[in-house]
């Protein structure tokens, strides 16, 4: 995932003299310091997660971001790279976050290279957005933009008479970044006793290229989209092999879905649905592969008074073949209900000429009992400098989606100077 920064620096040198309007610097980026203090110490950690019990800080790092974006009439280049100094782990690393070429034709937009792709209408609930995510960054208290990871992709969107069709091809699979054994995050690991693990090469051969299609159109102010995806689960399934050894792999997945979003009755309404077809486990009897399921999401957002916005969402994920799942479930694995219900609420208040932002995000599952609460204060001290202070609080049953992260609950602070 992480690449050396050299290509970015090289790109900066090459495109430096490109013609740009005088008042715009050709070079942008930021310097950022972020730290997150563990609020809830896990009472005990399995051997494979001993760092989680030892480290007081889940995050402590500095980043330097460089962005170069030369642009012509019909093309644009974008390169974003970071140098990261991790104080907790004591290492320095480079990351090539995005680097792509945009070509614009009369009825076609092409984007080639490493890019972030976002689909769907959910707020931290993803139905048709199957593209890779960095959950470690999210749990650790980094700014939300780090939740999305780049994909090395060909992205073509054609436009005909108000209707658009987007085709995404990803030849090199990029998995979600999840807490892993040996890391500093606490998570539910039913196979904690098995220390010897390996992950199947997540970069499949060319014929296993991931493909996504999105057809979209605005009708009378409402945004309609249809989605189709053929690829893989981005979080791995796990299987114990003789040894014992844990094999992690990415099972094949198809997703078909639709979404609509528009304004009515003084607010914005969102609706999204998706059907997950777990191709390797259509009977639901394979305990190491996620069953097929259906996900639905509804949301409403409204500005109550100037600069105060409320947003609420409800979502449900219904597992197919739940009986088969129950009868084949391995020991130590979570006993998940057939339907997982989730409610979210987001309150955002802007103050002091929109330079001070008070935010609260609450997500909870009424039937599984796990939750995530994120209050945050963000202040723009100047146009270039902002600081944020917040809490990531996870809780609920230890085996539930957010409950397993309780021991990573943190108080975080981020300061960023952008140029």
């Amino acid at each position, binding site marked *: 995932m992480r690449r050396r920064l050299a290509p970015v620096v090289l790109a900066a040198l090459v495109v430096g003299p490109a013609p740009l309007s005088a008042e*715009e610097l050709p070079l942008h980026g930021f310097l950022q310091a972020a730290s997150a203090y563990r609020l809830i110490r896990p009472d005990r950690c399995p051997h494979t997660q001993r760092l989680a019990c030892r480290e007081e800080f889940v995050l402590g790092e500095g980043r330097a971001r460089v962005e170069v*974006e030369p642009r012509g009439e019909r093309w644009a280049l974008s390169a974003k790279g970071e140098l990261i100094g991790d104080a907790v782990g004591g290492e320095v690393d480079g990351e090539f976050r995005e680097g792509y070429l945009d070509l614009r034709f009369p009825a076609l937009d092409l984007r080639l290279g490493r890019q972030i792709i976002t689909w769907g209408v959910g707020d931290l609930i993803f139905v048709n957005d199957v593209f890779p995510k960095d959950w470690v960054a999210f749990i650790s208290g980094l700014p939300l*933009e780090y939740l999305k990871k780049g994909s090395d992709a060909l992205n073509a969107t054609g436009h005909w008479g108000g209707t658009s069709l987007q085709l995404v091809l990803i030849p090199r699979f990029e998995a979600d970044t999840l807490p892993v054994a040996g890391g500093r995050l606490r998570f539910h690991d039913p196979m904690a006793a098995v220390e010897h693990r390996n992950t199947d090469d997540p970069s499949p051969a060319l014929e296993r290229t991931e493909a996504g299609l999105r057809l979209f159109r605005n009708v009378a102010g409402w945004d309609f989209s249809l989605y189709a995806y053929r690829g893989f689960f981005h979080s791995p399934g796990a299987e114990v092999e003789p040894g014992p050894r844990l094999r992690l792999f990415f099972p094949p997945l198809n997703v078909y879905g639709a979404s609509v979003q*528009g*304004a009515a009755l*003084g607010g914005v309404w969102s609706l999204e649905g998706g059907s997950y077809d777990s191709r390797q486990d259509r009977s639901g009897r394979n305990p190491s592969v996620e069953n097929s399921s259906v996900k639905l999401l509804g949301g409403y957002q*409204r*500005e109550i008074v*100037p600069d105060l916005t409320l947003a609420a969402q409800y979502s449900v994920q219904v597992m197919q073949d739940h009986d088969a799942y129950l009868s084949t479930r391995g020991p130590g694995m979570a006993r998940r209900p057939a339907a997982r219900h989730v409610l979210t609420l987001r309150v955002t208040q802007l103050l002091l000429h929109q330079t001070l932002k008070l935010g609260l995000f609450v997500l909870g599952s009424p039937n599984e009992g796990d939750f995530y609460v994120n209050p945050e204060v963000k202040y723009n001290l100047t*146009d270039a400098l902002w600081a944020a202070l917040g809490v990531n609080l996870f809780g609920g049953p230890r085996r539930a989606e957010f409950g397993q992260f309780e021991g990573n609950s943190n108080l975080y602070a981020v300061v960023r100077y952008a140029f």
Partner: protein
Amino acid sequence: MKRLLLPLIAGIATGALVAFAAWAQAPTAEEIMRRSHLAMYYPGEDMRARVTMRLVSKDGGERIRGMVLSRRNLQEGGEQRYFIYFHRPPDVRDMAFLVWKYPARDDDRWLYVPALKLVRRIAASDKHTSFVGSDFSYEDVSGREPEEDTQKLLREEKAGGRDAYVVESVPKDAGSAEFSRKLSWIDKATWLPLKEEYYDRRGDLTRVFSAEELKEVQGYWTVVKRLMKNVQTGHWTETVLTDVRYKLKLSPDLFNERALRAPPSELIR
């Protein structure tokens, strides 16, 4: 030659009649505000300008918002589309904002967040929300329908050395505006507002708008420098328009999700 003569005579006669009518009676308050609305928010079929907003607090703290604003009318005085591409501050660089404005109902608004490559719908129920934290509200940027207020021509007087009509506007629906009364000084020559005073429900002066500089661009008079001062907080905003261009033949089809995700060069510079 004969074929030209008739229209010429008709033209002169019409002109004379209009001049006579104007001399005979001043336009009504409704006409003044309607013409002012068109002169301020609808000139040309489309327009694009570089907009720099300087937000200054009472103690002199300053923040700068730099953007390129493009507008396209679908009908004169009716539906419009706006596209705003932010260049400054660095925090919002490359962010884009799309508005489909309807005279009789809530706008459709979209925001593009470049870091997440995310197009987000924005609730637009309140038009009095400040635009990017400035002293201008969304309504000040894209205009309030003159029909929403009861208009009254109070007097004629000079404002900034120019002859002006002074019109009082009172919202027909008190909940539809953040002011209870507004006084406008409308330039007789260009129909542009030279000055506006906003009063709150208690009758106290809250905000004062002033057109600091007028400029004729391609035959359209434009307020290229405008000031909005909140007299109660001491905070004020100066908006300067540069590189103003009209009649660029911007297609209405440019103002859509495609532009948010991959903005064409004509909308960003």
